[in-house]
């Protein structure tokens, strides 16, 4: 008991600025609750809402309702009370400090029950008039539809509407599952002069052009929200250093180069229009479900498209043709990961094995050994029953002279095994190893293992040669 108290004392002895930093990471309501810890803590939390407002409706839900439950019944009396308590609490939190003190962060997470819409707008408005540096809006909802009642727009805070520039300090804007009005594109260009970090995750958005001279980090991740509407989205973000375009159903293209991009994560659609060509400086690249057809400009290109590329991750059924292209052209490549989608070997969409017909004319097996002078590690992750012969062919085409040095540093990660659980082995051994274990078990390569360890004993012979 005394020991425990001593620990609590150590926490209480920390300076106010550290305790406030801690409390700015929980909801304002939760921060207030720490005032009951001791006299020392009585007033620590008070400084927090002058800098940071955090409201989360899920705190008021006794148990998160399952999707089925949500569909089945209307709100119960109990849930009505929860909503009332939430609204009362949020109104208190947003009026704790008069609009004088500027905010570091405003975070609001709500579900979009109709009764809340007006209230949510009210809280957002109170937050924005305090000129936040960081703004996060997270909506939990069953469906995302374009005529959703909670449409998000900053237009009422625009300078032309007479308000002072309340958003001139905004550096971080994160929106999750939000329907974004069309005027948002213009607003980002014209009224957010220092915006550096923009994340649109599972959002419905229709603006055609996203232009910002200040943006450094851009994420557009549509998850599985399948909106096919909308024409090409044009990016004009010359200072972006980190770019992630995931599952965008809309084609995305870039107006001009993005010379500062160091890391890019792109999907099939995004690549179709040559977004890859705009990020030539990238050091690391994630590609997800990219087929060789999506990279027509790669064919017959003499200069390497991404001369600085050091790390390449291919996720979920990228073509082997894509891999071959980078093996051939990315001279500085150091790390390579190929990860297959779980269970997808049984689906029709098996590009890794189908791509042979598509790409065989360009990449005859064995035509040329890939130099890959700098490759230090190769990570592979796939289900046991996956046909990876073509992948294996491609890896086998890495120059024989290079295989030996790689051999000492190549790792295999079988699905769900620990990050560093792999053991050194050649690409071929890595492939073989996947035939050794069960899909969901950890597998380590041990040269001493007997043939019985492998699902197919011939694999062992192969390895022992």
């Amino acid at each position: 008991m005394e020991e425990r108290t001593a620990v609590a004392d150590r926490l209480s002895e920390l300076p106010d600025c550290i305790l406030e930093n801690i409390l700015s990471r929980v909801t304002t309501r939760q921060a207030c609750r720490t005032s009951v810890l001791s006299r020392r803590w009585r007033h620590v939390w008070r400084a927090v809402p002058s800098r940071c407002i955090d409201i989360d409706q899920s705190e008021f839900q006794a148990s998160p309702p399952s999707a089925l439950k949500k569909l089945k019944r209307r709100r119960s009396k109990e849930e009505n009370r929860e909503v009332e308590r939430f609204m009362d609490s949020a109104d208190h939190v947003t009026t704790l400090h008069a609009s004088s003190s500027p905010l570091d962060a405003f975070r609001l997470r709500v579900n979009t029950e109709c009764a809340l819409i007006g209230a949510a707008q009210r809280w957002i408005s109170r937050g924005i008039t305090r000129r936040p540096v960081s703004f996060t809006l997270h909506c939990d909802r069953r469906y995302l539809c374009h005529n959703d009642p909670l449409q998000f727009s900053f237009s009422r805070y625009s300078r032309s509407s007479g308000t002072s520039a309340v958003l001139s300090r905004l550096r971080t804007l994160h929106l999750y599952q939000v329907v974004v009005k069309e005027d948002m594109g213009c607003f980002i260009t014209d009224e957010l002069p220092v915006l550096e970090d923009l994340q649109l995750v599972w959002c419905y958005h229709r603006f055609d052009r996203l232009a910002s001279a200040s943006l450094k980090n851009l994420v557009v991740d549509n998850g599985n929200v399948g909106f096919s509407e909308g024409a090409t989205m044009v990016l004009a973000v010359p200072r972006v250093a980190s770019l992630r375009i995931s599952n965008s159903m809309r084609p995305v293209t870039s107006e001009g180069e993005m010379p500062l991009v160091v890391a890019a994560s792109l999907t099939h659609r995004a690549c179709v229009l040559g977004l890859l060509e705009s990020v030539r400086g990238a050091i690391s690249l994630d590609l997800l479900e990219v087929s060789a057809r999506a990279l027509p400009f790669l064919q017959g290109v003499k200069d390497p498209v991404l001369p600085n590329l050091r790390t390449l991750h291919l996720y979920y059924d990228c073509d082997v043709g894509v891999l071959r292209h980078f093996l051939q052209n990315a001279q500085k490549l150091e790390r390579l990961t190929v990860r297959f989608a779980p269970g997808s070997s049984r689906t029709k969409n098996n590009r890794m094995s189908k791509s042979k017909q598509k790409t065989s004319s360009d990449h005859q097996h064995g035509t040329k050994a890939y130099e890959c002078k700098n490759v230090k590690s190769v990570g592979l992750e796939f289900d046991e029953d996956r046909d990876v012969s073509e992948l294996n062919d491609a890896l086998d085409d890495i120059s024989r002279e290079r295989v030996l040095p790689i051999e000492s540093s190549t790792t295999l990660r079988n699905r769900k095994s620990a990050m560093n659980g792999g053991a050194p082995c050649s690409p071929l051994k890595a492939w073989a190893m996947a035939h050794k274990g069960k899909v969901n078990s950890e597998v380590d390569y041990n040269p001493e293992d007997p043939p019985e360890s492998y699902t197919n004993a011939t694999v062992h012979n192969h390895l022992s040669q």
Partner: protein
Amino acid sequence: MAAPESGDGNNGAARMVTLISSDNTRFEVEAAAASLSQTLQLTILDGGGGGGDGIPLPNVDSATLSKVLEYCIKHAPAAANGGAPNATAVDRAELERFDNEFVNIDQSVLYSLIMAAHNLEIEGLQSLVAKKVADMIKGKSPMEIRRTLGFPDPTPEEQAEMNAHMLEYGWAYE
């Protein structure tokens, strides 16, 4: 800052600096890792810490310093690439895994760490530990927070004060 080559080999001559903890233990570490500390970075840029000199850190004991350096060494390559957002998904996932395990430690060590991170101005470590402590508070009732953080049960007097506070701030407790 030039990005140091990751891993072995071609530039074996990475600059090293020596740090000296409050209990006089010497730690030799790459300058790039130590430079995650804003405080140390200035000294190192001025050429300090090399040779036999060493940089004394009178506020950090050796146990805490070795933990701090473990963090810095792991995060130095990502920082050299321009910070976390630039790491790829795989790198981010690995760092995240490391971070989760890293803060899975006794509360007293945690508090020493956050103080050290504060003094040394290591932003990432400060956030990491602050987040860990915040997670111990999240979603808990006042009594649960007390127990989690090791506060003794309230005396009757304290209980009365608590009740008064809870009445005043009903919106935080209902």
